[in-house]
């Protein structure tokens, strides 16, 4: 087993407790969302039909059928997703700073491992990436389960069944997380990975040059952003509509790879030459 793989596994272990907590919160909160939303719809229906003696058709006409969209719009459904995103964003910073700060000096150990320091860096990036993908996978598994609960609670006359795909398409935030095709998935998460790498490079700047490094890091981040979107800027402000869509796509693929590779190169340089404990 090479040291990079060992490091990834080690980084996973360091966040595992929080990660399992996130998974738990997501499961509980989303299941609660299904139950709460279904129950309140059923109560409404009960009130209307049994107390107000409304016919089922009239009720449906007035309130509509219940569909999974009602669940995805609930705070209990979005809440844990937002929580996971925020937590992982914060952890993207913390995954580095926890090694410098505190009583221990684990960064000494990481930097003194008989392996390229870039492996430490890539292991941390991979860990973050795997955490994200794991949560996406969890959401994929939860959707059919949640639909089953809804179908089990709400009778067929009162509900509107959606396919998993429709559940995702009708909720744009899930749509970003799980786009139509595997190609888009690769693009969305490729951009995500690039963003993590750029953020890590900014952290490296800060760790190497401290206060001055913050400015350098911000400058680097801005540069990365400009380089990545350069084809768009050229298209919009210099050569109006010059590129065909497929050319623009290829150019952004190139600039994206350039930013990612450049950031990894820069981080490697900083880690081997400029880092301080």
């Amino acid at each position: 087993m090479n040291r990079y793989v060992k490091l990834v596994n080690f980084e996973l272990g360091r966040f595992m407790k929080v990660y399992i907590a996130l998974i738990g919160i997501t499961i509980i909160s989303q299941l609660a969302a299904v139950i709460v939303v279904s129950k309140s719809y059923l109560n409404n229906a009960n009130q209307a039909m049994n107390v107000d003696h409304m016919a089922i058709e009239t009720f449906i006409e007035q309130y509509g059928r219940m569909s999974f969209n009602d669940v995805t719009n609930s705070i209990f459904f979005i809440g844990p997703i937002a929580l996971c995103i925020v937590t992982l964003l914060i952890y993207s910073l913390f995954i580095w700073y926890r090694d410098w700060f505190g009583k221990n000096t684990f960064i000494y150990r990481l930097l003194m491992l008989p392996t390229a320091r870039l492996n430490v860096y890539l292991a941390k990036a991979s860990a973050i990436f795997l955490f994200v993908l794991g949560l996406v996978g969890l959401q994929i598994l939860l959707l059919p389960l949640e639909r089953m609960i809804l179908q089990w609670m709400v009778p067929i006359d009162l509900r509107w069944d959606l396919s998993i795909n429709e559940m995702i398409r009708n909720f744009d935030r899930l749509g970003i997380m799980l786009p139509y095709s595997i190609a888009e998935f690769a693009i969305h998460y490729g951009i995500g990975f690039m963003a993590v790498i750029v953020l890590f490079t900014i952290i490296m700047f800060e760790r190497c040059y401290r206060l001055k490094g913050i400015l350098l890091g911000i400058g680097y981040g801005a540069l990365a952003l400009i380089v990545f979107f350069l084809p768009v800027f050229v298209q919009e402000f210099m050569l109006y509509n010059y590129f065909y869509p497929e050319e623009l796509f290829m150019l952004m693929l190139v600039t994206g790879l350039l930013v990612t590779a450049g950031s990894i190169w820069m981080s490697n340089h900083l880690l081997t030459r400029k880092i301080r404990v």
Partner: protein
Amino acid sequence: MIEVKDITKKFGRKQVLRGVTFTAAKGEITCLIGINGVGKTTILNAIMALTPINSGQILIDGAKINKKSYEKITFIPDAITMLPQMTIGQSMQFMQDFYESWNQERATELLGFFKLKPEEKISSLSKGNTAKVNLLLGLALDVDYLLMDEPFSGIDIFSREQIAEVFTSHLVEDRGVIITTHEINDIEHLIDQVILLDDGIVVKAFNSEEIRENEGKSVVDVMREVYQQ
């Protein structure tokens, strides 16, 4: 041999090292002495490539440090290099996972010598025991060179004795050791080469045995001469 050649280092506007040069041979214990803030730790960090230097060169057996060097040279800083939530056993496992030069036999021997229990968590250890674990993790590596930063500071007397004992044992035999300290008493009789630092330069470098034999001075005597002028 570790060769430190004319290294300089600035922290902001403060010039900490102004051209430090010395060598530390294998099989010898070299002691870097100086008051706090003189840049002793910085020198060790620089040797391990844990901080960049502004100029100068550091060679380990004639080569610049690289990733493979860490199997040959190790550094025991003054704080433990493991996560507090790990147990001693897990720390040893970690070392075994990553270092080919890890010597499990020696690690077990040290564990017995220091009377440490592998299931104990690092966060629950006393200062002395933490220092011992830190020492263990470095000493159990089959390395040629060992750097130690203030191994005795802030540790109770019994632990100090135990740690000092290590230096006379087979555990450091044949290795090149660089130690920093500001109190020489515990180890004066152990060290071979003394490097006195002041104001970012080496003010005096000498062999403790030679100076004792030739001039009849102890290390402390020389220190007094140098620092109280």
